[in-house]
């Protein structure tokens, strides 16, 4: 029966002619309906089953069941486009399993799919061993190449126990396979959408977390400014300047969402925002990007140092200088060594020793939140601040942990 439909290929393989040319043989009527009508009923029921399946496994199971109802197939096998494994769905037990890439079944299907057209193979002596340990021999294999945007190279129906498809059934199975291919494609899209939704939810949660932390920081700044200010005017101006410094950092974080702000940019932005002349400071250090929280705390610290230098230190004199520098050291532990050094300041100001917000940032916040080791001193030349920041996921942007 098959010999009329298919042209023989070397190695016992056959190629199906276009279905329009196929003339199913007449056979004895087994029911009141014509066999054509019966076949089209079974086909339609199978297509509906595949189209309504939800989930990749369900699509394979529906395909296996449809192929059994339509053409007595024992199951269906699919090779993903990356050929990493082989999926096999059997209708009898209703199971979906994964075979390793070296299985003979996968090799047969991959080879046949590469031919680019539907191919029937008889008695290829395919031993199929399921992960459950169950083994069986399939005798007939019909491989249908499918469009790879479904994620698969090809689908193959197989028959065993002497059951073989009729010529008419054979011509209908590629249509079943293409419907499966469309269903797989739509499941893939559904999965990608689902993944994107989860990703979006976690990004929103991260933004929410950061917003709450930012508000907590602002609340603390308000309270601290209130405790240290000597007049309502001083309170207002300190508060405004500190919130502006925080806002600048948020701006920089938004611009460099993927990579975190450059340390040099943070420093330059703070100094220029406070109208410090270019010839009064030197910034030297390698490119370095800070994680969001560390950027915020470093920017606030920098703000306090700048304000102090403007009020009492290097920036009170035309010849006063500030050098901001940092180096990256890998031993004994990865550390960013950051230095703020003022020079040409004649008299060390007594008021700079007052315990203000800046000192709290340097002596308490940086060590607590970022594990930094810090020192602050006033020498003859002016203020000197050292911050040794351990390099880890809290302080630095790494490939593994990209902040928003």
């Amino acid at each position, binding site marked *: 029966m098959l010999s009329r439909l298919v042209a023989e290929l070397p190695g016992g393989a056959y190629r199906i002619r276009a279905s329009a040319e196929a003339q199913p043989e007449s056979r004895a009527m087994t029911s009141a309906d014509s066999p054509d009508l019966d076949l089209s009923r079974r086909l339609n029921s199978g297509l509906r089953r595949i189209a309504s399946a939800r989930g990749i496994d369900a699509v394979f199971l529906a395909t296996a069941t449809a192929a059994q109802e339509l053409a007595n197939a024992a199951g269906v096998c699919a090779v993903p486009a990356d050929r990493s494994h082989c999926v096999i769905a059997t209708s009898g037990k209703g199971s979906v399993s994964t075979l390793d890439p070296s299985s003979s079944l996968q090799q047969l299907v991959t080879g046949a799919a590469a031919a680019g057209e539907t191919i029937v193979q008889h008695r290829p002596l395919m031993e199929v061993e399921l992960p459950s340990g169950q083994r069986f021999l399939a005798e007939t294999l019909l491989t249908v190449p499918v469009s790879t945007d479904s994620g698969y190279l090809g689908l193959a129906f197989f028959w065993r126990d002497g059951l073989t498809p009729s010529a008419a059934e054979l011509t209908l199975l590629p249509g079943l396979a293409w419907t499966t291919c469309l269903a797989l494609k739509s499941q893939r899209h559904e999965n990608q959408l689902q993944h994107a939704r989860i990703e979006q939810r976690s990004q929103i949660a991260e933004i929410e977390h950061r917003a*709450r932390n930012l508000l907590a*920081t602002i609340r603390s700044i308000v309270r601290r400014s209130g405790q240290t200010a000597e007049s309502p005017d001083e309170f207002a101006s300190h508060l405004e300047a500190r919130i502006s410094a925080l806002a600048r950092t948020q701006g920089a974080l938004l611009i460099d969402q993927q990579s975190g702000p450059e340390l040099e940019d943070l420093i330059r932005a703070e100094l220029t925002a406070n109208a410090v002349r270019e010839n009064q400071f030197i910034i030297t250090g390698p490119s370095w990007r800070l994680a969001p929280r560390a950027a915020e705390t470093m920017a606030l610290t920098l703000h306090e140092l700048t304000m102090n230098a403007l009020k009492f230190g290097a920036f009170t004199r035309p010849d006063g200088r500030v050098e901001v520098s940092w180096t990256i050291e890998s031993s004994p532990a990865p550390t960013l060594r950051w230095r703020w050094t003022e020079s040409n300041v004649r008299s060390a100001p007594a008021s700079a020793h007052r315990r203000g917000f800046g000192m709290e940032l340097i002596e308490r916040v940086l060590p607590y939140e970022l594990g930094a080791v810090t020192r602050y001193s006033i020498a003859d030349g002016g203020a000197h601040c050292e911050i040794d920041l351990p390099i880890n996921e809290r302080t630095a942007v790494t490939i593994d942990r990209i902040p928003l």
Partner: protein
Amino acid sequence: MRNKPVGEHDTPLAGLRVLVVEDDYFIAEEICSTLREHGAEIVGPSPDVEQGLRLIESRPIDCAVLDINLQGSFAFGIANELRQRGTPAIFVTGYDVSVLPGEFKSFARLEKPVNLRVLLQTVQAACAGHPALQES
């Protein structure tokens, strides 16, 4: 005997040792000073999971106030350790922890930003049966 509500007694938490785990310095400081002012002895505060666990191992603790999201790592390990010891804990969370794992359903939970008066009441309620509070 019922515990006196906050405000009627200067040190309603006297004798309680409270572990504070919170990665934000200012929030930690705010929580600790409030609890301290009301008589509690603070263990910590700890900014991360590792130090929090070390404190549980090395110090007696009657109650804990835990921020769940510690710069991206979750404090459930600490909570689990406390649960096994029968030590009451209060979770402080934001929107980012919308669902707590089932085993922590019975733990008290406060939303950020924390209202300090509510925090005091919650710590008091969580330790209601504690001998230190019974004496006062």
